[in-house]
């Protein structure tokens, strides 16, 4: 309006002085957002810790119903996706559009894999009446495990926490897949370069945080 800055790059919004200021601001905003995510999850961690300290034996027993190898597999899948998204940023910084797109697509596929594994885990639980909340009623036998013996006081709390934590985390994975679809399309249009890759960087930061949350959920719920 007042001063049309014809010499400025297309991505630079008028209220910033330089691309650098815009990049720093966006990244700082993203870190603040990540902190809000951490505090959102902190509520679930508090619930977990409180109930675990109150009923350690119930938590230990209930955790037996979770499959640590599927959980471990999913951990590695998410770590791999973190790796590919970091590679994607590397290629964006090197102006390598092909490398960027390939890695974004790989990240998306890893996220999908994670959710597919999660789907099988959930349905295996639901089949035996392991639901969050009032419907919690473990029954039936599979792989030599008698689910009915897990119907003990406070097992409901463990599985409520399990489903809510992994559910919120799964929702974040879903959001991440949406984000990666969006930036893959933008990357294909050639919108990103070493001069401007802020959205890639920020989606990457978000995705690493989703990974970190899982790094803690996995041992807490499946292993110990």
């Amino acid at each position, binding site marked *: 309006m007042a001063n049309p800055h014809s010499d400025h790059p297309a991505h630079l919004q008028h209220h910033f002085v330089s691309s650098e200021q815009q990049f720093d601001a966006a990244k700082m905003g993203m870190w603040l957002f990540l902190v809000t995510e951490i505090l959102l999850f902190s509520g679930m961690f508090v619930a977990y810790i409180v109930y675990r300290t109150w009923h350690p034996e119930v938590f230990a027993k209930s955790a037996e119903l979770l499959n640590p190898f599927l959980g471990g597999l999913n951990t590695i899948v998410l770590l791999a996706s973190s790796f590919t998204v970091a590679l994607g940023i590397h290629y964006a910084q090197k102006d390598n559009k092909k490398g960027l797109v390939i890695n974004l697509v790989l990240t998306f596929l890893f996220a999908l894999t994670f959710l597919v594994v999660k789907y099988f885990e959930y349905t295996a639980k639901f089949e035996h009446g392991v639901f969050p909340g009032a419907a919690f009623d473990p029954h039936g036998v599979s792989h030599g495990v008698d689910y009915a013996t897990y119907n003990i006081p406070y097992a409901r709390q463990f599985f409520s926490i399990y489903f809510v934590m992994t559910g919120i985390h799964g929702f974040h994975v879903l959001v991440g897949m949406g984000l990666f679809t969006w930036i893959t399309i933008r990357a294909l249009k050639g919108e990103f370069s070493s001069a*401007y890759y802020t959205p890639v960087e920020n989606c990457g930061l978000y995705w690493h945080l989703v990974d970190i949350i899982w790094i803690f959920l996995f*041992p807490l719920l499946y292993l*110990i």
Partner: protein
Amino acid sequence: MSHAEHHVSSIKLLAIIFGGLVFLTVTTVLTAQLDLGSFNVPLAMTIAIAKASLVVVIFMGLKWDNKVNSVIFGLGLLFVAVFISFTLFDTLYRGDLTNTTKGTIQDQVLMEEGLQSREPAPSTLQPDHTP
């Protein structure tokens, strides 16, 4: 433009970190199968913190980033610690006054029911009661 100042992590470094993360994951799954007594929880948590630190410092690039972002992240962790520890001040010491009990309301109800069931049932008042 000063974008050249942005740190570019080499593929080699990223791959090494990824390898380390996978190694730690396998380690934590395997050690969880062992019975280390009270060491299982601290070990699993130590490994998780190590993995998370690798992701934050290298993958998320906090090592090369503006210091203010590290402060923000640290503040977030600090307040998570506050939330956990101050809640535990209550839940770990619940009932430390002599005139309150430690159990939840449900525990108290269960206890009361237990006491009642041990009393001889006055069959005239509770005809349906089966001991």
